[in-house]
């Protein structure tokens, strides 16, 4: 009989015997890449501070994952790009003013990174098992622990190397405290306001300001199908509708005026674009059933507007997503897709 068989040890594994090329680390690194345009805009507007803070976050995220995994004898997985992504996202969510020696706040990004990677992710079992978006927990922790440092906003300046810049309020802050008229005044006219918000020339977190750059990255992810429209569109749509219905104020009395809000201002400001496209869509912490993702997006949008209009903070994206993160497993379980054939037989 044939002798071919003797020479070879055949590999036996369960089917399928072919696999798609996609890998977890390729996905993670691609998302990192898609964030770069927005990061560069932050770098451009806020200068070296932005670079330093983000780098600090990335380095401390990756290192804390590495050392934690070493310490508890887990496989070291820093190459998969997910802790890099957490660091990058956290950095982009921090105010550029944190790079300051007087008062000294440089430890703040480091603490945030450790909280994000070690507590939020690794304590729960590592990638795939965390309930909350690590970067957002990191940020939420910092906001509560360092309320002052975390709410000092600086003006975008073209003075690139300047490590200190004039402080100011964010557009949402102005909107909340002083109303829409003041906000428009601060930017000259309405059209200019929109344009500046779109380009990202405004005070805010490092990577959240440039809607244009964020959309470029998001468009790329959508095109590559790394994310789908379900969460961002339902999230943004809900914000727009609610902003229109409840976002208006009577200029004389300061009372709420229904159906008079400006949805565009709400869409273009705060961390909404960054949150809707890059953080609410985090695979691990959002529902994985598409129908459920729409519910999730609507929930995020509604909570965001609730906080923005009624809450104590001018911005609500972060808490909205974190709150919805809790519900993601529940949404998945209750919105399981229909098993093939379980629906009534339909005839052609």
């Amino acid at each position, binding site marked *: *009989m*044939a002798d*071919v*068989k003797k020479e*070879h040890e*055949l*590999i*036996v*594994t*369960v*089917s*399928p*015997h*072919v*696999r*798609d090329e*996609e*890998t*977890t680390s*390729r*996905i993670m690194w691609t998302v990192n890449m898609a964030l770069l345009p927005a990061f560069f805009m932050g770098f451009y507007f806020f200068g070296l501070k932005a670079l330093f803070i983000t780098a600090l976050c990335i380095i401390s995220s990756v290192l804390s994952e590495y050392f934690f995994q070493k310490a508890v004898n887990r496989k070291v*997985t820093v190459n*998969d790009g997910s802790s890099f992504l957490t660091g990058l996202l956290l950095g982009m969510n921090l105010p550029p003013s944190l790079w300051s020696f007087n008062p000294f706040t440089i430890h703040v990004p480091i603490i945030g990174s450790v909280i994000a990677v070690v507590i939020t992710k690794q304590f729960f*079992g*590592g*990638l*795939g*098992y965390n309930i909350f978006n690590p970067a957002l927990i990191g940020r939420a922790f910092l906001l509560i622990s360092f309320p002052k440092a975390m709410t000092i906003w600086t003006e975008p300046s073209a003075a690139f190397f300047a490590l200190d810049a004039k402080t100011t309020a964010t557009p949402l802050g102005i909107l909340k405290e002083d109303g829409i008229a003041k906000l428009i005044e601060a930017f000259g006219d309405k059209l200019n306001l929109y344009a500046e918000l779109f380009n990202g020339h405004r005070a805010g977190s490092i990577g959240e300001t440039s809607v244009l750059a964020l959309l470029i990255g998001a468009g790329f992810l959508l095109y590559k199908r790394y994310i789908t429209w379900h969460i961002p569109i339902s999230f943004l749509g809900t914000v727009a509708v609610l902003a229109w219905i409840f976002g208006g104020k009577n200029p004389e009395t300061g009372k709420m005026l229904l159906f008079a809000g400006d949805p565009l201002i709400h869409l273009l400001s705060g961390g909404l674009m960054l949150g809707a496209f890059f953080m609410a869509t985090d*695979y*691990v912490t*959002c529902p*994985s*059933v*598409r129908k459920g993702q729409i519910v999730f997006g609507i929930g995020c949008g509604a909570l965001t507007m609730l906080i923005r209009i009624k809450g104590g903070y001018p911005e609500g994206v972060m808490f909205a997503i974190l709150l919805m993160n809790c519900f993601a497993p529940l949404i*998945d379980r209750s919105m*399981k*897709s*229909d*098993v*093939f*054939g*379980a*629906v009534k*037989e*339909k*005839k*052609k």
Partner: protein
Amino acid sequence: MALATFKGGIHPPDKKDIAKDRAIKEAKSPQRVVIPLSQHLGAPCKPIVSIGQEVKKGEVIGEPGGFVSAPVHSSVSGKVIAIAEFPNAMGRMVNSVVIENDGKEEWASLKDNPDYIKLSADELKEKVKAAGIVGMGGAAFPTLVKLSPPKEKPIDTIIINGAECEPYLTADYRLMIEKSGEIVEGLKILMRILGVNKGFIGIENNKPDAIEKMKDAAKNEPNIEVCGLEVKYPQGAEKMLISALTGREVPPRALPMDVRVVVQNVGTALAVYEAARYGKPLIERVVTVTGEGIKNAANLMVKIGTLISDIVEECGGFKDSAGKVVSGGPMMGFALSTLDVPVTKGTSGILVIPEEGVVHTDEFGPCIRCGRCIDICPMGLMPSMLSILSEKGHYEDTKEYNLFDCFECGSCAFVCPSKRPIVQLVRLAKSLTKP
């Protein structure tokens, strides 16, 4: 018109070019054949020959052991030299009859009956039964059972499955090109047996020449419709195919006959024709020998019981090193641990994957809940949850996620970026729980 299709599914590289243009060739008659007495789903056969006995080609050597069963015939003429347990492609030991080939190729009986179509439905059915025909797409379900629906489940449609959605495989494609007329005849016989007057032949759209040929062969048959299907795996799965062509969805745990449909593979249709016309039993089949690791790819007409090692040798052996040899297609086939296993009625292909092409699955990551598997599962399941629960040992809980509706098509494992062995975990859970 939009192409007929189903919801979900994947697009693995089809790699059919390797063997597509090799016309069907008669394989060398082997020195000996090892014919398993259980090649089908259902009860194994009882041997009716004894060691030392001379048998002719086409002679019955195993009688069906129950209703869901099919007789087994000798594929050569020669002498029975052993009846013992031998490994099959799934790695299981099965009782098999070993026959030494005397090379005379003497037939037991073979009679041309050109008027076969005038035979009554029962007579035709009897021929299918005697020929030991089973589904030749892989699952090897006895055809007779499909042709004997209970009275309360009338059949109104027969579908011939020419989708051949498994990558690499081209056996059905070659049959449709070379034996289109016979396949249409086979379908007509099946329609007659079941008293049905609607027949479909579904073919994936990446085989336009096969569609052309089949359309041509069926052009005088108003009741037979040849349909192009979207190219998508697993288009050829029974439930998907039925849904694509008729819009009917087979309910979970139900059979095609519950939606009045019978599905047969093109190879089966040919076997039915040959049984009806010549009384020829199912003793040979077309096997695609393919893959980047085989020297000469081919579509061979192989005698049942021929050892895969013989076939590999006939095809020039491995290019350099074979990493993996798969019986069947890459999505649902079985990796062989030895080449000394026989070709059976359900063997559609032999796929040789070179060492560098082997996907190593021992290193897989956690589920990142990306939802890809959920999007593509043709059964609408949540493979992610099945794999997570099974991995953690929560086998009972997998049933909440409809474990037993998974037919192990492998689409989920194909797309998973974490390379999770989902099918393996599903099988594990299935073996440790009851439906």
